[in-house]
């Protein structure tokens, strides 16, 4: 589908990859705050660092003066990273004020993002929050002053719901509430959960269950799952000599090992049995035999004749050349 990016997104992206003056990729030396969000598996990841200006002993007077990012991701991920750093430096705010910046603010700064790209702005907000928490730890600021429940940070460790992006139930619950996500589509757009293989959508404890639980909806009746039909039992071929297909295959293998292989080996060749179906033996010649112009003769006179004599006169040998 064609891109639906604002001019702002395009401008920030172009500036960033051109490395224009005033862009923010990179890393702050000895950062006061450092945060990370995303992973290579998810398709985007961001390393975010900032430096503060300390006016006194009170950490609450610290102001963010420099912000840098390193980002692996698409156009809007890079633009979101750039936007976040610009917002922080333009506003010269304290880390505690910065934590109030949500993904919606980044979207506003970017003059909008396509719905399926919202997760790029969420990544920026998450990395920022992680960096502020890091700053608070370094500066001995209690997390409660940030309006963050310290238990929440540990809580995000938990049962993995979305295995594609390794997202846990506590994390998804928290984001569903914070970002007011009301449907599976909204969840995928914002935090990616359920956006890939989709198997967590309706499984027990999956995204729909979390939504129902958070927003207090009765679980909808679940459509009966696809139960694959049982494999029909293959019609038993009533052979004249009552050999099961398994026994026949075993005998073919025995004759190949004892009789055919040694003969082919004399000429530096070998054979691989690809599949045995009824009395049809699909095989591949290997080594010099594979390249030999007489391969067909070899199959007819060595392989097929031996199997007919030793196993069953109706055996047919079919070459596999791919």
């Amino acid at each position, binding site marked *: 589908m064609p891109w639906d990016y604002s001019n702002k997104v395009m401008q920030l992206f172009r500036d960033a*990859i051109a490395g224009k003056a005033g862009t923010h990729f990179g890393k702050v030396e000895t950062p006061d705050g450092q945060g990370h969000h995303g992973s*290579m598996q998810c398709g985007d990841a961001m390393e975010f660092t900032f430096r503060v200006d300390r006016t006194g002993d009170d950490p609450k007077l610290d102001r963010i003066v420099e912000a840098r990012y390193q*980002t692996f991701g698409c156009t809007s991920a890079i633009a979101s990273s750039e936007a976040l750093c610009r917002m922080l430096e333009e506003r010269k705010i304290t880390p505690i004020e910065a934590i109030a910046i949500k993904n919606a603010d980044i979207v506003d700064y970017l003059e909008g993002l396509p719905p399926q790209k919202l997760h790029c702005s969420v990544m920026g907000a998450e990395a920022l929050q992680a960096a502020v928490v890091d700053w608070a730890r370094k500066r001995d600021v209690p997390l409660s002053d940030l309006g963050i429940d310290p238990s929440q940070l540990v809580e995000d460790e938990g049962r993995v719901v979305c295995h594609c992006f390794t997202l846990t139930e506590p994390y998804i619950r928290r984001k569903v509430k914070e970002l007011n996500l009301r449907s599976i589509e909204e969840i995928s757009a914002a935090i990616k959960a359920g*956006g890939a293989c989709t198997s967590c959508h309706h499984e027990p404890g999956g995204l729909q269950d979390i939504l129902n639980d958070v927003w207090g909806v009765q679980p909808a009746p679940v459509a009966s799952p696809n139960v694959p039909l049982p494999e029909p039992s293959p*019609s038993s071929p009533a052979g004249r000599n009552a050999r099961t297909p398994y026994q026949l295959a075993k005998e073919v293998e025995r004759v190949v090992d004892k009789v055919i292989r040694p003969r082919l080996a004399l000429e530096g060749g070998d054979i691989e049995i690809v599949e045995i179906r009824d009395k049809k033996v*699909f095989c591949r010649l290997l080594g010099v035999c594979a390249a030999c112009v007489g391969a067909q003769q070899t199959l007819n006179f060595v392989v097929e004749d031996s199997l007919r004599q030793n196993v069953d006169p109706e055996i047919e040998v*079919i070459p596999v050349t791919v």
Partner: protein
Amino acid sequence: MSKQPIYLDNNATTCVAPEVLDVMLPFLKEQYYNPSSTYPEASFAHDAIERAREQVARIVGAGTRSEILFTGCATEGNNAALWGALRANPDRKHVVTTAVEHPAVLEVAKDLQRFGYRVTVLPVDTAGRLNAGDLLKALAPDTAIVSIMHANNETGVMFPVGELARLVKRVDPKIVFHTDATQTVGKVPMSLSKDLAAVDLLTMSGHKVHAAKGVGAMFVRRGARWRPFLIGGHQERGRRAGTENVAGIVGLGRACTLALESYREEERLRQLQQWLEQSIKAKIPNVFVNGEGAERLPNTSNFAFEYVEGEGILMALVDAGILASSGSACTSGSLDPSHVLKAMNVPFSAAHGSLRISMSRYTTGAEVDRLIEVLPGVIDSLRRISPYWDQEKNAPREGVDIFVQEKYR
């Protein structure tokens, strides 16, 4: 953009050849009659369709032109192939296909499961190749149809469908063998009377061979166990109802004759492909070619650039006036990278950074040179921003590659 862009996305669609447009126009103007009408004025359109049928039959090497049906697109053809084979074999409930098929086959197969059919999806190896043994083992007593594409649209990897069809027929001649040849018709020579003699159904599209969008063709071998999909008219001898897209069909016929003449281009494209791949590998670290080592189309190169994201690559190329495509998640609307690259077990780090270059007979050496000139700078600037890349060493950050390989291989 004032200048014409360099178009390297020919597996997505192709430009309409000027000769094709020329033969189409009369049927959009004065020759608008319904080819089924009885007055003499309509016979021109009718005859033009039959001539186009002959031209399509020739490019795929069909024995007679009556084995060719015109469709709306390859997607219709693929739907018709699968459903038509199943309806003609009601006692058979099993379908075999591959993990790398186009969604027009794979999604139909998924849908079939909802109707109680069993589907076996064959895996591919890391170079995108099928294993004949897997195919033979997958065949069940009630297998109705095997559908295997001729060449993959993303990687250009070709499957030996002629030989695979022959093996399937040796196990059970009643199994219908279908191949989606959308990416091969017009690019590599083929013959349904020779190398593909065991193939029952073949589907193709017009707009991949420099004809217009909205027209396709389907080969149905005489005597194949297949029932029509679109019903409701006597057109195409009742096998595909609906008033014919006369202009599109006539254009497709012309496009086929042009493609047949251009088969000598194959060697030139192969050389361009080789030049492109060698140059990119020499100029850019941590890149590999998906499907390398397998037999591939001459026009397609699928690169995986580690530690960068494909959408960013495309966007930066657009700014340089080059149009291509990517298997990255960000370009797909879903958050999942290409199902083809995943089936090939390409690590996520690289699947996200995939770039598909697909040429046509109109692609020039100068255009490929321009790509070779621009791409290293694009990858470099994106890697500079990436947290996984060490700019000073111009290599992945220590530990990153090990992490990636272990987690996603």
